[in-house]
């Protein structure tokens, strides 16, 4: 469903963050992207949600060339995507319920259906009792679960998570990984998760792509090596 074809990314200041990235991710997969800080993991994610455009090659999601999207086509693209960040990025002046409801309002879902779906995902992430709390009243783990609930509310085909456990203690990190695994199974959502925490990867084994200095240096399928050029 997602393909990187010879993708390179050079930032405006001349810094080259990605070189010749080739990658294929199939519907329903759970993929880790790991690598040291500055290796280009976030850049990879930003190319997927159209925050950045590749300077060479193409990123294609279900026949859509993401890099070629015009500014006003981007909202539509993002509506088909779920995104989770290390710093949660919840709207501070909205309750948990409203934050999730917002994502559904954006795609113009009918009111009663939307409310039902919000309760459903709150149940799924185990936050049903925090629906009316504001983000600032929640712990980090709870905020991240709210952010995940928002990301999956509109049933995206692809969920990308950039270091979702980066700010959480090991116990909470485990919970979040469990949750993502559950979403991958129950909602059949394709998931790409960035982390530089190898413990997480060991604890819940899945396909793992390793980045170093902008190159993919390994692509491991649940313990075994997959072909790679570098």
């Amino acid at each position: 469903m997602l393909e990187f074809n010879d993708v390179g990314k050079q930032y405006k200041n001349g810094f080259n963050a990605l070189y010749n990235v080739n990658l294929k991710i199939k519907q329903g997969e759970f993929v880790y992207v790991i690598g040291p800080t500055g290796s280009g993991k976030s850049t990879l994610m930003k190319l997927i949600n159209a925050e950045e455009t590749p300077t060479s090659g193409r990123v294609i999601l279900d026949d859509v060339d993401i890099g070629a999207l015009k500014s006003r086509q981007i909202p539509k693209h993002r509506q088909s995507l779920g995104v989770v960040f290390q710093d949660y990025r919840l709207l501070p002046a909205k309750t948990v319920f409203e934050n999730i409801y917002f994502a559904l309002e954006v795609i113009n879902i009918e009111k009663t259906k939307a409310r039902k779906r919000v309760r459903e995902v709150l149940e799924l992430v185990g936050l049903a009792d925090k629906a009316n709390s504001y983000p600032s009243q929640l712990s980090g783990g709870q905020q991240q679960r709210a952010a995940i609930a928002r990301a999956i509310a509109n049933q995206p085909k692809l969920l990308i998570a950039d270091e979702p456990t980066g700010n959480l203690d090991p116990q909470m990190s485990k919970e979040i990984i469990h949750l993502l695994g559950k979403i991958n199974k129950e909602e059949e959502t394709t998931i790409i998760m960035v982390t530089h925490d190898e413990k997480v990867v060991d604890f819940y084994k899945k396909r793992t792509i390793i980045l170093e200095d902008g190159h993919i240096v390994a692509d491991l399928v649940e313990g075994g090596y997959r072909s790679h050029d570098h």
Partner: protein
Amino acid sequence: MITKIARILREGIYGVIRHRAMSLSSSSAVTMTLMIVSVFLILSVNIRLIVDTIESSVQIHAKIEVGTNFEQIRSVREEIENLPGVKSVTFSDKDSELNAFIEAYGDQGDLFKMYVGDKNPLRDAFLIETTSGESIENVATIVAKIDHIEKVNYGGTGTLLLMDSMESIKTGTLIVMGALGLLAILLITNTIDTTINARSDELFIMRTVGASNGFIRWPFIIEGMIIGMIGSLIPIILTVIGYIYLYNMLDGYLFTRIFALVPIVPFVPLLAAILLLLGVVVGMLGSFISVTRKLWWTR
């Protein structure tokens, strides 16, 4: 469509309520600017009225030669009426001229009553009003050359100087008014900009979740309108109470009976409406400008 509008209104109102402190600081920027605008509007409108009163009280007085017959008077009048810069021409026969004279001298006017009737030494005359103070001198010169006109009087250079300064007062108030309007928009945009800057994260998050610019922008515009409305309340109340109080205290006149203040109705309701509209429009523009600028840099 209705759900969309309902969402925009709801989000706009929530935005104001949930960012109370920011809304309040933006509103007070509006309040301060509108107070200044209000004071200035009251001053300038009243100054204009006084200037107009002075201008229209200055007339050219053209005496008609003795022995000019009706036909001739009529043709002279027509000639004057057709001159550029002439607003109106009134014929005043020598009896009314004398009456005006007697009245102008007030208590001592009785002394001149002996001239009433055949002994009246005055002349028939035209009272000429010009469209502006500037054209007085020109019109007077031309009228003086017309046949059957004996003498033309308009108060001389003193009047001309007065007229000049009146005109500059008028343009002056206009310029200050324009500058003030610009200042208002600048000040308010600046304040709203600061508050929206603090919320640029929100705009960014909304974009990431897939909201289009229009979807994001409208609630902010409503927010700006509400903030403008709230900000205009105090200026409106103070203006209404203040002007009515001042008007009643001065009995409707400034210094002398000649300088009337602008009457309360319809001036005060109009002023209140203008302040409200200004608050709302400026709040809306401020919001629109700063959100649009923010979104412009957000991919």
